[in-house]
């Protein structure tokens, strides 16, 4: 059971039960849909950006506890950050859930550190990372648009 609690931390279970920033976001500047076909997880992420800073972000969809909690905590974690800072946070989070050689948790991750247990469950890494990939897709698409306009 102790192992399991490492994965299903209270914070994760709480965000699964009552996800934050859940629901539609009108007038979003960036949007993307993410799909994890293996699990059937589906997420939509909508972001409002002002002067390169994430001013609001919300998500919708359905998925397992890990993917839902990850999306919820991600929205909390990136609000108020610049798009560049968000990208850096993505990399830190990615390392957290995939790199089994690192034993200490990056302090910059804050609350997101609750996902450290995921690295011991390789089959679940995709669940934890789905929201972040979807966010990146939303940001990349928009930046491409910006650069071509």
């Amino acid at each position, binding site marked *: 059971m102790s192992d399991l609690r490492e994965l299903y931390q209270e914070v994760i279970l709480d965000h699964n039960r009552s996800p934050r920033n859940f629901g539609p976001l009108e007038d979003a500047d960036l949007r993307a849909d993410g799909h994890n076909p293996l699990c059937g997880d589906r997420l939509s992420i909508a972001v409002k950006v002002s002067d390169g800073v994430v001013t609001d972000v919300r998500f919708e969809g359905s*998925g397992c506890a890990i993917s839902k909690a990850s999306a919820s905590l991600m929205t909390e974690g990136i609000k108020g950050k610049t798009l560049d800072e968000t990208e850096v946070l993505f990399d830190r989070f990615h390392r957290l859930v995939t790199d089994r050689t690192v034993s200490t948790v990056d302090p910059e991750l804050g609350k997101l550190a609750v996902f450290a247990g995921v690295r011991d469950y390789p089959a679940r890494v995709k669940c934890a990372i789905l929201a972040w990939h979807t966010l990146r897709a939303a940001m990349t698409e928009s930046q491409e648009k910006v650069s071509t306009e």
Partner: protein
Amino acid sequence: MTSAAQTDSVHPGKTFDVERIREQFPILASKPGGRPLVYLDNAATTQKPHAVLDTLSRYYASQNANIHRGVYQLSQDATQAYEDARAAIATFLHAAEPAEIIFTRNATEGINLVAQTFGRQQVGEGDEVVISTMEHHSNIVPWQMLCEEKRARLRVVPITDTGELMLDEFVALLGPRTKLVSLVHMSNSLGTVNPVRQLVELAHARDIPVLIDGSQAAYHMPVDVQAIGCDFYVVTGHKLYGPTGIGALYGQRRWLDAMPPYQGGGDMISSVTFERTTYNEVPHKFEAGTPHIAGAIGLGAAVNFISGVGFDAIASHERGLLEYGTLALSGVSGLRLIGTARDKASILSFVLEGVHAHDVGTIVDTEGVAIRTGHHCTQPVMDRYDVPATSRASLAMYNTTGEIDQLVAALRKVREVFG
């Protein structure tokens, strides 16, 4: 309930002893992660008995040679073993003759073979192919590809809330443009066993040929392709307690003779010049290149193993497990079974209220129980029941009621974690 008690209660007066069966599967005695393996993912693949493992090892250690080529003894022996395996599968499926059995990589390849040969020959623009909502993706996508190429139409027989084919709708879909019906014998995500004999009769009454996907059915119940009357029947070796990478397609001789080859290469020809190639006889016409010789021989050993245990005993044991499991799972709070057809076998697909199937799978795994979670390559079934995924325990001849108890205990752990 102990396994000894189970032997008595499930099989009064029968010789089937699940412990004796389990002894024949070495992996069941292994302890991955330091605890006994509770393997309940048989619909994905079954474990392999000594009879199959020993055959594979013996083949490579003392019989290995290419087939249908050498004049030397070893090659002739290998050829004989390969053709004996074909005959064993013909007997297992009750085909009229061994030549009606084509070795394939798996059931998927069997379906693709029919789609790309028979299908391309018979299906034209505006024609229709009929499948059902409960098909595995392998019995959907090859027909979609064919229909796209030929500008034909794919028609889908709906299913009821319990997971049964709607027979009236099936009959209504059969029309003058229907060139083929392709249906699953037993659903991998619902456990439903379809009335294949009746379905074939209904289609044949309109001169429509029928392919039956026997991937799941063939290791749970006796299959008699002549009694079913189907034109084609596909199986996969790794679900028949046999090796991966080998399967078989049964086809009625008259179709096989008339069908064009599937792939070109060695062994499928009788003569080759740059001007013209004449094709070999069936079944070799459909087996281009060096086949999975060891796999075929291993599959022959697997079906002989199944026949040795006997479907009477297997079906009776598995029916007992299914009844026990259905009752035991219904005692888990918030659990809903998906797939409750009157005629079903060996599959317990379910959702737990408020918990995603992947979380169920992970927690159950930490308790040492291997089940499958996800859409089981049947996304239209998930859509039909409006669930993103299900958890699925699928049972085989070596499973016990004790293992089902372990699953139920593990599901209680899920409830502890998720409240």
